[in-house]
């Protein structure tokens, strides 16, 4: 019991470190406003979790700090100039409605950040999907001006992506504050997989599914470009790491997780291809919640059956040993 709790805290720590590096990059591009936004989200998440845990008559432990990582993930999915009121409501939705109503971190059903993102998408689509250009710094309480559509939107609708590979790697294109720094995200993915802080199966499945269909049915004429841009746009990489591969949600066994991620990747790519649906992967990950729950239930049944079989074998072995012992005694 103690070992499992410790591991959960380490996972949270790993995730937070990678998120903070993304936040640092966001500060570089968008200034103090993005940090302030992240700070508000994290504080709101923390307060909401504290109150919820107390209402559930549980003790607030270090493991409950996962609320801060959920809040930070959500902040990084927003434009850096997102309205503070909307951000607070979104975080409250994530922590209270999408998580603690179902029992909190000990009974996770939805990815809180994904559910809250979809909530904001359906209620405040215009504010969510408009961004400032990189290096445009907005004051803390200033009304943002000259908002633009994301590079993903332009790519989905026109098939053109007018940024160099260098800009793509460093995240120098318009989009959600934390989802554009591709190099950082790639490094984070590798580190988190090596430290087993995310589901490697789910991550690889998502990337493979998206990539495979990007090559088979390309969005643009060049298959290589289709593969490249499909993975760097529409929050695919970010969601693959922090939402689809969330250890609390994804199936535990890697081969189940791989297929879970594969289907999410494929379906979200198809939605982008046929309907130009921006950031479809987040929506699909919420829709695939019943599938993840189904896989987990199957895994539990397999584990139970395996345990029963093992105990039967042990009992049979003990019975044989006892019988052999008795025979030996009677021979003597």
């Amino acid at each position, binding site marked *: 019991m103690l070992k499992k709790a410790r591991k959960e805290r380490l996972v949270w720590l790993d995730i937070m470190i990678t998120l903070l590096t993304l936040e640092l990059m966001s500060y570089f591009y968008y200034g103090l406003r993005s940090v302030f936004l992240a700070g508000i989200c994290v504080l709101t998440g923390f307060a909401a979790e504290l109150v919820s845990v107390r209402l559930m008559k549980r003790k607030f432990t270090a493991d409950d700090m996962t609320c801060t990582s959920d809040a930070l993930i959500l902040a990084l999915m927003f434009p850096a100039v997102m*309205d503070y*009121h909307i951000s607070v409501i979104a975080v409250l939705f994530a922590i209270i*409605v999408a998580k603690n109503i179902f029992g909190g971190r000990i009974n996770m059903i939805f990815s809180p950040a994904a559910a809250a993102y979809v909530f904001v998408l*359906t*209620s405040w689509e215009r504010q969510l999907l408009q961004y400032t250009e990189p290096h445009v710094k907005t004051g803390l309480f200033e009304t943002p001006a000259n908002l633009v559509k994301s590079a993903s939107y332009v790519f989905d609708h026109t098939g053109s992506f007018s940024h160099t590979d260098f800009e793509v790697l460093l995240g120098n294109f318009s989009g959600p504050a934390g989802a554009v720094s591709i190099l950082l995200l790639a490094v984070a993915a590798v580190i988190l997989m090596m430290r087993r802080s995310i589901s490697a199966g789910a991550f690889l499945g998502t990337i493979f599914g998206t990539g495979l269909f990007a090559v088979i049915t390309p969005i643009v004429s060049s298959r290589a470009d289709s593969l490249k841009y499909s993975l760097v746009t529409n929050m695919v990489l970010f969601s693959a790491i922090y939402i689809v591969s969330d250890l609390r949600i994804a199936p535990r066994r890697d081969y189940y997780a791989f297929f879970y991620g594969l289907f999410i990747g494929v379906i979200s790519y198809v939605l982008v291809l046929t309907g130009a649906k921006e950031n479809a992967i987040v929506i699909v990950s919420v829709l695939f919640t019943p599938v993840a729950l189904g896989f987990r239930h199957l895994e539990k049944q397999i584990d139970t059956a395996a345990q029963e079989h093992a105990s039967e074998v042990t009992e049979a072995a003990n019975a044989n040993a006892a019988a052999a012992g008795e025979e030996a005694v009677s021979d003597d």
Partner: protein
Amino acid sequence: MTDRKKALFGGVLGDNIVLSGLMVISPVIICGDTLKNAEALIYAFSAITFLSVLISSFVPKKLPYTAKVIIYALISALVYIPVKLAAREFYPESIERIGIYYPLLAVNSLIVFQTEAKFFRMKKGDMIVSLLSCIIGFDIVMLLTGFLRELFAYGTINSRIVDVNTLIGGLSQPFGGFIFLGLMCGVYRFIRGLVSRNSNNDVRSDADVSDK
């Protein structure tokens, strides 16, 4: 005496048909996004349910269950006609707003099932009181839902603009209705648990499936 009071007046708060019994929730979820819709639904539900159950109480008890259920449904389908004609006269816009949920009120489970399970086991006088308290319970939930959803989704109260800082557009949609009603049920149970003397919070759900 307390048990009798509970049986008669429980429908208002203690055993609310929507929040506790989860009956007639479709109109609350879909149409309960404005106060005007709520008022139209309250009128339709109250009139149809009261008249249908009252008339159905004269159906002979000795008939088979299946026959009785069909007769109750036919009675409420007939009661629906004059109720709708009156609505067309006094609230013509409400019919278009509520759409298919108007006729669906006539086959709500309070009329079709609860009549047999609860009302017709009581004396006539008690039945009327209990029925009225169930209807008032629905009306309260409908008003509250319509008021809050309209306020936070549209920033209006009964179509009059009110100064609300941030509007939540999703509250006006069906999914907003689901989530809002779920939260309302949870809060209702929480308050009921605090208020009631025994600590048992169980209602209709087969709760407490323990995980291993």
